[in-house]
């Protein structure tokens, strides 16, 4: 019996020390991630109009290492560097089209959240075509049923 009590007591002590260590580790991790986040915070542009333009553009540019996420939403290092680059280009006086063109040259069309119409006509037109086809079929069936 004594043996059992000893085993239970020692296990409880072990768990207590693990929990204590976990709390310390959790606290340390929170502090480290907080510091890392502080380092990763973007510096907005002083000019409010330019900053608004930059933020609008962020939603049109895809993060090149994320799945379907814009650089506005992504916490990735690359996305942060891309946001910084967009802000720099705006300050240099580049237009939105020029910025998007430069990024497309560097990373290909996948960097744009919306694929350009001229290179992806079928992709853009197919939903409308299918809708028209469906409506035409429905109309034709209705007319046919009325006649019957």
């Amino acid at each position, binding site marked *: 019996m004594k043996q059992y009590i000893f085993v239970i007591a020692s296990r409880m002590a072990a768990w207590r020390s693990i929990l204590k260590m976990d709390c310390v580790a959790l606290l340390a991790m929170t502090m480290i991630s907080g510091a890392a986040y502080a380092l990763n915070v973007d510096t907005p542009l002083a000019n409010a109009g330019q900053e608004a333009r930059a933020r609008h553009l962020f939603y049109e540019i895809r993060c*090149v290492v994320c799945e379907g996420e814009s650089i506005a939403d992504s916490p990735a290092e*690359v996305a*942060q*560097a891309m946001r*910084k680059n967009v802000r720099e280009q705006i300050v240099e006086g580049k237009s939105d089209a020029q910025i998007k063109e430069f*990024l497309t040259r560097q990373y*290909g069309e996948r960097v744009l959240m919306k694929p350009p119409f001229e290179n992806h006509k079928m992709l853009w037109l197919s939903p409308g075509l299918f809708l028209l086809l469906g409506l035409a*079929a429905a109309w*034709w069936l209705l007319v046919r049923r009325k006649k019957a």
Partner: protein
Amino acid sequence: MRFLPLIMIGLLSLVLAFSVLKKEKPVDAFASPLVGKPLPAIVIDGRDVAQMVQGEATVINFFASWCAPCRLEQPELMALARRDNVPVVGIAWKNSQEDAAAFLEKHGNPFRFWLSDVEGKSTVPFALTGVPETLVVNAKGIVVYHTKQSLNRSLVKEEILPLIERINP
């Protein structure tokens, strides 16, 4: 017109079959926009990278102390530097000088010189998607090779060394 649903399904199947059977580039295919062009003119750490490597074929490696694959490729970079026929230059991407220096002290320093790009200014001009990435530049400052892979023995032996032999005989 009782076959209309059948025709619709047929049309949809054709579209689906076309999109599936259409030959597409493999996902891992990577065509760097830098290859064949002069090294981007960019100042890192107060120094113009293109000017610093001018006149000599050079291997440029982007690394970071927090990047695990960079640790794995470090022996390959050390071996490349020991060959003495091409200088290896490092750019610590999104990494402070102190952290990068500590990393190089621990894992070996293969670089003739290295710069610290704390803010990641090189990202878009070099079309980087992360680290490690490696470029080979010829003596005229034209980029002749760019890989996003972590360097390993076969990559160095089959792609990088023959290229260096060719541009820097």
